[in-house]
């Protein structure tokens, strides 16, 4: 079932506010909350206007006085414009502010580079103490929201804009634990977000037809990264491929490459948005196809890499490359 993660968040937050009087929803005129939700939230909803630095600072001040603020803005504005307030006022103090960032990755579609967030994961995951999560679908978003109630420090949640497809049914994600969606010993495909995770699942299916077995990891939590799951999956593999709606540097691919270089050296291919700003109109699906963040691309990358490795004699799984 297709559903927007930001809508799933909004609809789950309202009843949560009623159950937890310490929670407060601070908005920056995002338009996410309709009159009905605003009325239901009562005093626990406040629209502070288009002022993201003040939004983060006020949230930190309230958190220092015992409240748990959910702040709402677009990912692009949260992590660029308000970055210093997040770093100094929220992360430095380890305060339980929940940064609910919509329009993550290419989700802003035709709105253009000002509204795309292709650096947010890189920026957020280097902040000490910051938990960084990319729920892949609506159900995962609800699970993250529930689990956030037990998180003492700050949290960054990357949400989408329009409806995105759901992952195949399975247990909900646990913050900090990678989800193994498929197991195979030859390559590891690690992704975050709806389209990349689904692309990796489809790629794994296709690769199996070529005799290449892939483990597929939904690395929904970039910090703290589940290094144990990653190292265990990468151990027997000849190649790890990451796929994300993010510039190639610093995001999931960066986190995976850093970890594996130290813990279980293996070749890592980082697939993401190339080093460029979005240059044309298109919805999320169009832009994903335009930048080739697809199952076909993953298959091609894996086959080329293993083929090259086989010819140079550096892989122990030559029989898989046929």
């Amino acid at each position, binding site marked *: 079932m297709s559903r927007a993660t930001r809508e799933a968040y909004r609809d789950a937050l309202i009843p949560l506010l009623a159950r937890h009087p310490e929670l*407060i929803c601070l908005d920056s005129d995002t338009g996410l909350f309709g009159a009905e939700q605003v009325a239901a939230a009562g005093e626990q909803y406040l629209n502070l*206007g288009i*002022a993201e*630095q003040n939004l983060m*600072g006020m949230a*930190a001040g*309230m958190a220092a*006085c015992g409240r748990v603020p959910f702040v709402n803005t677009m990912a692009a504005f949260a992590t660029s414009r308000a970055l210093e307030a997040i770093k100094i*006022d929220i992360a430095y103090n380890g305060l339980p502010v929940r940064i609910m960032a919509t329009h993550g990755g290419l989700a802003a579609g035709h709105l253009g580079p000002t509204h795309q967030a292709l650096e947010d994961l890189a920026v957020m995951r280097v902040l000490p103490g910051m938990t960084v999560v990319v729920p892949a679908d609506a159900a995962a978003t609800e699970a993250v929201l529930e689990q956030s109630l037990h998180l003492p420090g700050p949290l960054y949640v990357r949400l989408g804009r329009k409806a995105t497809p759901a992952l195949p049914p399975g247990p909900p994600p646990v913050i900090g634990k990678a989800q193994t969606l498929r197991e195979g010993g030859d390559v590891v495909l690690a992704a975050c977000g709806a389209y990349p995770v689904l692309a990796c699942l489809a790629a794994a299916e296709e690769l199996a037809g070529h005799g290449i077995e892939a483990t597929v990891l939904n690395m929904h939590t970039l910090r703290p990264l589940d290094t144990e799951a990653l190292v265990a999956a990468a151990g027997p593999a000849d190649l790890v491929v990451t796929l994300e709606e993010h510039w190639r540097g610093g995001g999931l691919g960066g986190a995976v490459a850093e970890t594996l270089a130290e813990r279980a050296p293996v070749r890592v291919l980082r697939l993401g948005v190339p080093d460029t700003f979005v240059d044309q109109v298109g919805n999320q699906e169009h832009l994903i196809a335009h930048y080739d963040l697809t199952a076909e691309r993953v298959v091609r990358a894996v086959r080329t890499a293993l083929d090259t490795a086989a010819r140079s004699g550096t892989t122990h799984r030559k029989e898989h490359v046929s």
Partner: protein
Amino acid sequence: MTGALLERAEPETLAAVAARIRRHVVDMCAGPEGGHLGGGLSCTDVLTALYFSVMNADPLRPADPDRDRFLLSKGHAALALYATLAERGYFPVEELAEFGRPGSRLMGHPVRAVPGVELPTGSLGHGLPLACGFALANRYAGRTSRSFVLLGDGELQEGSVWEAAIAAASLGLDRLVAIVDCNGLQLTGPTEGIAPMEPLAERWSSFGWSVREVDGHDPALLAEHLGAGPWEPGKPSVLLARTVKGQGLPFLAGRAASHYVTLSPRNHSRARNALRATEATA
């Protein structure tokens, strides 16, 4: 009187406390790293009024949820805040000698490790949004405690200050008090020559704040204004404290060069003598 609260102290007494704090500030600037001497001395009387007369703040109960809260948004004046907190009894005055020395917690900008510091500050333009958060949370909790924040006049060039000014007025945070240390100078020169902000009173008032303007070097007068509030129900208050950068040191007062100073032994003794002379004529 170190460490004791001077309840509604006599003017002489507040002035005497301020004089002691000034001596600490000067001493700290004679340490290995020097310090923000000018801006520390310009806000000393404001800090004295707040901590020794106005605020409900008890070093024995620093986490009291009903306490008044203070933020030093112009975090570079940390040395003056440390001296004030030590004099007020939050930590031993002797520790001030550690300012700027390797391993000390007394960093150049306030950190939470220092008893009495609510939240770290230093990058300009953060204090007012944070204080708005304090004030709003206290209002939700039904507390009558007040939130104070001290800003520099140069700091008003940061846009986030005005984002928060809008929010505070629109939310009617009348238990919030901002104080602007108007010493007229920033790092490289006169504030009015770099980014003119006058008429300041009209600017704040047009943003929906209740504004007063006073001599920032009269701690008793400052205490009188800051102690009585809100000045207008439903409006946040801002006190424009007209001050002198480097107050008390004739050889540096009113000069941008006083911004960051490492006092040589000779200049340290010159500064101590100048403070004594100023106090004698006060």
